[in-house]
């Protein structure tokens, strides 16, 4: 009798526990619906359709033909060259000028000036980057643009160029504008990179720095032996963030040059956009996306393994 009673209680408890789990699952339903419909379905669809000739409605299986065609695409050469130029320029600028600025701001004596500079250099991030890009288009305008007007007024008409329409210099003119999104453009100080460096510098314990100061370290020694090693994580974050952003960026290019003149400013993202939305070659576009994704994964993995340091923060 007693035995039976216990079993009954535990059964009821089990049922109650199962019931009490129900609201927990209910909490997850909206997130999972969004996850499956708008994230995982397109993710797998991209891989699947990269093996198809696909116009968005009809699809025919073509195997790896899209990838083979990709290797012979006229736009491949220019795209690789341009993405290399844009990414190297982006990486170079992300690792130099904002780092110097961050160290300078961090070591300013006046607390208030530190706050002011951080405020000033964050502001460009809230200006829609489309506005920034369009302003640069205006600066570069061959006839009405301030750059050429300045060159003429200053007596250097021989340097006047059609900055974005000259196939030899358009891609270099674009490096000054940046990829859009991270707020990094000439002079490359304001933006996310700076904020990331600053957060790293802020995490350095003041005891370490005080000890160094008491030892009589110069600010260069301080930078070289304390600050730089201790913000390796942030440098890695900026490196990976810049590469990933630049590899897929075509925001600036679609607004200003659309890959032209000729293919002189073509990048992979722009080629993908053309194929998908101008030529209705969605399968081919998916293949471009798959290749880009693979390259990004490899770069991220290499960066995370090679540059991992003891100061990495553990998310959990």
């Amino acid at each position, binding site marked *: 009798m007693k035995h039976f009673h216990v079993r009954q209680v535990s059964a009821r408890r089990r049922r109650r526990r199962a019931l*009490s*789990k129900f*609201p927990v*699952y209910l*909490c*997850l339903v*909206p*997130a999972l619906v*969004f*996850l499956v419909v*708008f*994230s*995982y379905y*397109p*993710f797998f669809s*991209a891989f699947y359709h990269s093996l198809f000739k696909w116009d*968005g409605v009809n699809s025919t299986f073509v195997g790896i033909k899209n990838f083979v065609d990709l290797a012979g695409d006229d736009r491949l050469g220019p795209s690789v060259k341009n993405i290399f130029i844009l990414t190297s320029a982006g990486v170079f600028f992300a690792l130099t*000028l904002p780092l110097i600025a961050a160290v300078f*701001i961090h*070591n*300013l*004596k006046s607390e208030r000036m530190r706050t002011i*500079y*951080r405020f*000033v*250099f*964050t502001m*460009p*991030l*809230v200006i*829609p*980057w489309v506005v*920034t890009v369009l*302003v640069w288009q*205006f*600066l570069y305008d061959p006839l*009405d643009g*301030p750059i050429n*007007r300045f060159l003429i007024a200053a007596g250097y008409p021989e340097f006047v160029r059609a900055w974005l329409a000259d196939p030899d210099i358009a891609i270099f003119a674009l490096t000054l504008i940046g990829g859009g999104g991270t707020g990094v453009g000439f*002079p490359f*100080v*304001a933006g*996310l990179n700076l*904020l*990331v460096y600053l957060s790293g510098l802020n995490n350095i314990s003041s005891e370490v720095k005080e000890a160094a100061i008491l*030892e009589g370290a*110069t600010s260069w020694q301080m930078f070289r032996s304390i600050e730089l090693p201790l913000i390796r994580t*942030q440098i890695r*974050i900026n490196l*990976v963030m810049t590469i*990933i952003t630049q590899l897929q960026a075509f925001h600036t290019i679609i*607004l200003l040059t659309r890959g032209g003149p000729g293919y002189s400013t073509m990048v992979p993202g722009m080629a*993908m956009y053309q194929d998908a939305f101008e030529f209705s070659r*969605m399968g081919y*576009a998916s293949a471009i*996306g798959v290749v*880009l994704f693979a390259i990004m*994964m490899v770069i*991220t993995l290499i960066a995370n393994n090679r540059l991992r340091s003891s100061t990495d923060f553990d*998310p959990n």
Partner: protein
Amino acid sequence: MAKPKPKHRRPELMAVLRKEDRVKHAYLLIAALLTFFPFWLLFVVSFKSLPQFYHNVWILDYPLHFENYSLAFRVVGKYIINSAIVTAATIVGVLFVSSLAAFAFARYSFPARNFLFMLIISLLMVPSVLTMVPAFVLVKNLGMLNSLWGLILPGIAGLQVFAIYLLRNFMASLPEELFEAARMDGAGIWRSYWHVALPLSRPVLSIVVITSLLNTWNDFIWPLIVISDDDLRTIPIGLAFFRTQYQTDYGPLMAGYIISLLPLLIVFLFISREFVRGLTAGAIKM
């Protein structure tokens, strides 16, 4: 240089630092001037008539043509409203969906919890360039092309990933006693979500709001392919279209740019501290 005399070290060091601060200020000021110079030109030209523009582009001259602004606002105004609708709806959606899921992940154990969480977190590695084309076809098939829903729903899906990650970590760090106390008072799962977890997570929720705000407000490529009706354009694509309309009518064109950067700038002026924090947290997600 190491200072030989310990006695004088401190004052001397201060002097060196102060001298060095001059170099720092010089560098930072030049960088700030170069950063904002294009926007100064933008500001100046927005008040000019065309003859004034061709005469001088560097400084303001009178009369100021305020009518450039009323002209531009007639076009840009509706873009701002569309952007505001999309952004507000996306933020509300992200907050709701991600805080609920994060709460479940953080405070309850259930079968497949870690698996489901990994399933969500893995998406941080998936770039939009991979999913853009199939997502477009999906939205088209769902009949959401050329509607604001086509921006809002995929927007929520994209932004919830990082939000769930941030919120789960934060909610998991909250002390269990608070939830225990709520349970003692007879609170069920909904009330401990609404009255305990949500209010305590306010600092992280503000990060979610700011990253979602900036991402949605600035998004360009996705609205460009989803929206074709001028009345539904958001600011970024609206401006690109506006530019092709006004070509060389620089005064109203620049006035339009200024108008469209004002809303976020004003928000920023009020809560710049939260912006700095939110942006930094958003950047270090990798």
